[in-house]
Structure formats: C-alpha cells, structure tokens
C-alpha cells in the first residue's frame, strides 16, 4: 500500500518535470524561429513561466511537506511576481528603442 503510493508520487512528479522541460525547450525553439522581436518576446514570456513553474511543482511533489517545499513555494511566488514585470520592462524598453512590430493593428502607447 505504502509502496504503491510512493510509486504514484514519483510518476506524478516526473510527469511535471518532463512537461516543464518540454516547455523550456519550446521556449528555446521559439526564440530562434520567430521572425519579429515581439513574437520572440511572446514565446519567451509564456513558455518560460509555464516551464519554470511546472519544474518547481514537480520538485514539490517529489519532496512532500517540509520546510524545503516552503522555500520552493516562495520561489514560485517570486517568479510569478517578477518575471512578467521584467518582460514588461523589456518590451517598454524596446518600444522606446524604436523597434516597431511588422504589422501594427492598434497602438496603445503614443508618445
């Protein structure tokens, strides 16, 4: 009974870890293949957050309830707060750097 529960926990953890690694590799491929700067930033933001949080969730499932998983939860919250803000700052910087998208549908930032 206990053995089957531990095997189930390892299976769930490795599913999370492999999903996270897949997202990180897709981030890398997106950074190379997309033609425009803002498209690359789009790949970089979404896949990065999904991959990192999935890897950390896998580690939490592997660990169980302890102080180490509390530290991992703190890392998750920190990444959830700061990483979108960093991507937003880079996008604003690029707009001021006079890099325009290929097709502008609607321009929200007018200087």
């Amino acid at each position: 009974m206990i053995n089957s529960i531990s095997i189930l926990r390892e299976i769930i953890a490795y599913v999370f870890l492999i999903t996270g690694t897949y997202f990180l590799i897709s981030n890398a491929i997106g950074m190379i293949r997309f033609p425009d700067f803002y498209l690359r930033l789009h790949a970089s933001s979404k896949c990065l957050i999904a991959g990192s949080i999935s890897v950390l969730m896998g580690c939490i499932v592997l660990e169980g309830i302890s102080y180490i998983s509390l530290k991992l939860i703190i890392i998750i919250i920190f990444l959830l707060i700061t990483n979108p803000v960093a991507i937003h700052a880079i996008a604003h910087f690029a707009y001021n750097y006079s890099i325009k998208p290929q097709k502008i549908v609607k321009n929200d930032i007018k200087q």
Partner: protein
Amino acid sequence: MSRVHKIFRKFYKIGLVLFLAIFLLFIFDEIQNLDIKRYLSEHYISEGVQETGAINLVTSVLYDYRGFDTLGEATVILTAAATLSFMTPIKKVKMLGTEFTIIIYQTIIIIIPFLVVLGMNLIFFGHISPGGGFVGGVILAMIPILVTINYGITFSENKLKPNHKSLLEGIGAIGFILLGLLGIFAGSNFLASGQANFGLGNPGELISAGLIPYLNLMIGIKVGAGLAAIFNSLIKEG
C-alpha cells in the same frame, strides 16, 4: 617586408597565448601531483565542529581561525566607501534613462519585505547553512538600489539619509573590533571565539558557536551600509 611583418605579428599573439597555456598546464599539473600531507586542512575538517561549534566549516574558517583576514576585507570596503563619500559633488548631474511605468513602481513595494526577510535569514543562519554576513549584507544593500532606480535619488535620500548610512557603517566596523577585544578580556588572543570559553552550545542550534553569530551580524550591517553608500555617491557623481 610589411606583409611578413603582419604575418609575424599575427602568429606572435597566437604563439604567446599557446605558450602561456602550456606553461600554466605544467605548473598546475605539478601542484596536483605534489605528495605532501595537508595537516592544516585535515585538522579543520576533523575537529572544526568541536572546536568552534559552527556546522558550516567555511564560516568557522572565516570568522574563527582566520578572523584577522576578515577584518582586513572589512577595512577595504570601509576605505572605499569613505573615499567615494568625499568625492561626491554638491550639484546633481543628469543621467540618461527611461522612465518606468506604474506597474514596476507597485511591484517594488511588494518585493521589499521579501528582500528584508531573505537577507536577515542569510545573516542569522550564517553558521548553520551556506550564506554569511557578506551575502546577506549585499542582499540588504539591494533595497536602496531598487528604491533609487525607481523613485529617483531625491526620494531615496529623503528616506535613508546618507549620514545614517555612514553611522551604520561605523557601528559595524567598531563593533567588529570591540567583539574581537572581548577575546583579550577573556584571557585569549585577539578575535578568538572558540578557544576563549564563551560557551559553544549544541552545534546546529541558532544560539551557539560562541561569538560567530554576532560577528556575522556586524559584518552584515557594515557591508550593507557601505555598498549602499558607494552606489549612492556613484550615481550622484558627475
């Protein structure tokens, strides 16, 4: 002649780099194969925990066995901060940079308590887990840097006055030396915490290891205030 000269110069650089690489390879290979016994490091590894009471051996070497070297490092930062504070001009110089949006302003307010807790954790658990006074002090010094690049130098100097930073740095430096003098009063050497019978406690608890946690706290205060003062005067200097 000129072509030969150019080719010679190109090969001269490559040959110099290759010669240096082979020379260093021989030297390091010689060092690795020396057949000497390392008495000192074996003593630190085998008896460091009983003698100093700190689980982290790097901390026990830094603050107990080689405490005098740490005092020298602290003096270097004190000298740098004092020199840069003298060089600060009165008038401000315009620096070029983008303006941040309100999203980043609000994020910094959320981040600052996290930074305080992380830095204090690294300082107070310096003798149990990796970390120590230096790393925790730099984490604490990141708070004035983030406030300065977001809200401007005037707001930052209004909140944390430069005189207070200098006072904190002085408290850290003087406190380190006074804690070192406690060793002499207890009948041992300068900066001795393990040999002077201060009560080592159980290794692994928060209050243990004699004087090492207090020395960590002093180094943390000093490095944090000193680096904040250096950044402040660097960004105002023209």
